[in-house]
């Protein structure tokens, strides 16, 4: 047994040494090799001193919608998957602390204010950037902090796949172009696949309205499973704007009256807007925000009519859709976007 314990300790020491070495090499040669990766974008935002840069913050919808080349020479697309105000709030803090006074573009969608850091704050994005000021505190604030993130060799566990996927994916290909943070896809789904996606969405819309009508009808009962399903459906199909989060957003906007903030609701597939049961609340919010903040400008393209072949899937624009949107947006926001 003694030999076993001794050998085990030796093994652990050797393994830890290899893990530390691997960690250092991986950080240097893989994690920050790709500029368009999420972690690369965060670092870039901190380090960028270009006085003409116009950052675009948003989710994957924004990543495939804002084409920097079509919008302006200073535009850089910082959008990341699953990103909403949980992350954008922090990125805005960083951006607003900079001396430049260019516009800030913020993509809006009906899930913008949902508070779901376990889903939206990806550790893989922030752990390699812990040396940057405020990142650790931010992760703690969002409840995404773990002690192991400070331990080399252990800190990237669970994120290696993300990094490797980025290394493999972040390359231009026949139907994919990467342009200053944006990822543009030429993909057009087949009619049947698109129809399936829409059917699934309409079924969800139908399910939600059926449960809501049961809830409103005192003569009908609603099971616990239905209530649980409703929570999930509300998350997808309802705009939620908690007062404290809207107030925080306004606080950020008001902190730099010299910097125009362009809040842009990108084009959505008609089925997506149709599904938002309280779309009126979004327009009311927009009206209120625009009234209270002279430096906040709303651009609502949610209902912009685009054919199905302008979508990569039922939620994201493809290259054709992005070009159509950017043409309109450039025209409408010309004054804020600088030279092309």
């Amino acid at each position, binding site marked *: 047994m003694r030999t076993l314990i001794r050998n085990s300790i030796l093994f652990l020491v050797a393994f830890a040494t290899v893990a530390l070495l691997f960690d250092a090499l991986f950080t240097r040669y893989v994690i920050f090799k790709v500029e368009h990766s999420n972690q690369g974008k965060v670092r870039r935002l901190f380090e960028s001193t270009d006085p003409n840069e116009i950052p675009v913050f948003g989710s994957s919808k924004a990543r495939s919608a804002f084409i920097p080349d079509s919008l302006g020479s200073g535009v850089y697309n910082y959008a990341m998957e699953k990103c909403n105000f949980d992350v954008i709030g922090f990125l805005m803090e960083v951006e607003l602390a900079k001396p430049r006074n260019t516009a800030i573009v913020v993509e809006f969608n009906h899930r913008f204010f949902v508070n779901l850091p376990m889903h939206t704050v990806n550790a893989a994005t922030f752990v390699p950037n812990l040396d940057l000021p405020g990142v650790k505190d931010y992760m703690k604030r969002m409840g995404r902090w773990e002690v*192991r993130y400070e331990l080399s060799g252990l800190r990237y566990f669970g994120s290696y796949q993300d990094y490797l996927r980025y290394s493999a994916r972040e390359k231009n290909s026949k139907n994919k172009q990467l342009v200053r943070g944006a990822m543009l896809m030429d993909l057009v789904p087949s009619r049947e696949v*698109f129809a399936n996606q829409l059917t699934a969405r309409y079924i969800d819309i139908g399910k939600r309205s059926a449960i809501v009508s049961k809830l409103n009808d005192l003569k009908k009962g609603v099971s616990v*499973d239905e209530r649980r399903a409703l929570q999930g459906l509300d998350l997808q199909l309802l705009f939620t704007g908690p007062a404290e989060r809207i107030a925080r957003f306004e606080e950020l906007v008001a902190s730099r009256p010299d910097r125009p903030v362009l809040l842009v609701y990108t084009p959505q597939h008609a089925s997506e807007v149709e599904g938002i049961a309280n779309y009126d609340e979004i327009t009311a919010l927009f009206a209120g925000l625009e009234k209270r903040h002279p430096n906040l400008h709303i651009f609502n393209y949610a209902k912009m009519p685009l054919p199905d072949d302008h979508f990569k899937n039922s939620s994201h624009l493809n290259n054709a859709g992005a070009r159509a949107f950017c043409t309109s947006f450039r025209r409408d926001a010309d004054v804020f976007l600088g030279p092309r």
Partner: protein
Amino acid sequence: MLFNSFQYLLFLPLVLVAFHLLPKQYRWVMLLGASCWFYMAFVPVYILILAFTILVDYFSGLLIEGSEGRRRKGWLIASIVANLGVLAVFKYWNFFNYNIGEVFRDLGFGYGVPDLGMLLPIGLSFHTFQSLSYTIEVYRKREPAEKHLGIFALYVMYFPQLVAGPIERAGRLIPQLRNAPPLEPEDVRYAINKILLGYFKKVVVADNLAVFVDQLFGHVPSGTGLQYYVVAFMFSVQVFCDFSGYTDIALGSARLMGIRLMENFDRPVWSGNLGEFWSKWHISLTTWVRDYVFKPWAAGKPRWAAGLITVAVFVLIGFWHGASWNFLIFGLLNGVFVVGQYRFAAIKWLKPFNKSRFGKVLWSVWTLHLVVFFSIFFRAADVHDAFAIIAHIFTDFRVSAAELQSGFFAEMAMGFVLIGLTMCTALFNRQLRFKYNWLYVVGMLVLIFLLGTDAQNQFIYFQF
């Protein structure tokens, strides 16, 4: 506390050090404290339910042992009612309440009994069944009543198998808790290999497959029939790796204390019929049901009645999994096909075919498909979704260009690579000589580190 959390990686070594440093007579105190800590990491107040079960069954055991005749039976019934009562309230109340309410409303009557607004206590069905098996065994005079309340509490609460089994029997576990055998190097090797295999199955295979599965099962029917067919397979593998991964970690953790828990799986994937599958899958539950429900119920009954009882038992197994129509149908389908396959295999002129190599392969493929199709009821959000998916598989089974472009097949290939890796690692583990075990350990650590997710998804079977 989840096995796949960083906390557990600190918790287990601390418990092990304390366990091996303490004199044998005090170990149970430390283990009981650790088990309470482990369970209270979920929802602390639910420990009161466990305490209730422990006290009821501890005193029931003593009272059953000390009495005879009708009184003895009475104490057993009291224990069963108390245990099943806890299950009925916390697990099945809302289901029955809603369905009874629907009947009342359909008949035009008012119904205002409220639902229970509580989360299901984690692992309730597991520890209830484990505790119940003890009183039944005492009643049958196969086990003596445990006099030591602490040891009995530890039997119900022993943390490696507290929330998702294996459902142990008192005769196996209590003597080991009282006096664990000394740890041998072979135990350490077995334990480390098991724990690593368990983590590999959970954080590499199950949690990675969950991403594809959740995507399609979450929005029905957003994919083609082919996609759903593949994803149904993926889900079967996911649930196997999730549950058997948990069990492997449980077995390994316990073995590091010298305690041998029962194996819960015996390579169920390749089974010749559904009955065989169930004899290899979640063995501790199926043997529990066999010993305490099926045998007493079916003893002496004619063949047709035994068939009906088998179906009923499978419906119960389905309902054990969850209080919903999905699980009832899942159980019913399994029961009907177990009996049907058994009857079919008994047809005289088919016997030579059944025994041939081709026949065996065909039956195994058929069984695998049954398992996969029934698993759709296990995973789907409701019965409507489950039937919609099955209909979709049969009516929209095709490859589309968009799938090829979107990388669906690359993801699918990745899924199959993971499944292949699982099989290889399991085989490699069996073949390995002791002195080369470090190769296996290094390989598994590298795979877990590089391919693992830190989603910290709860184990699927925790909800039961």
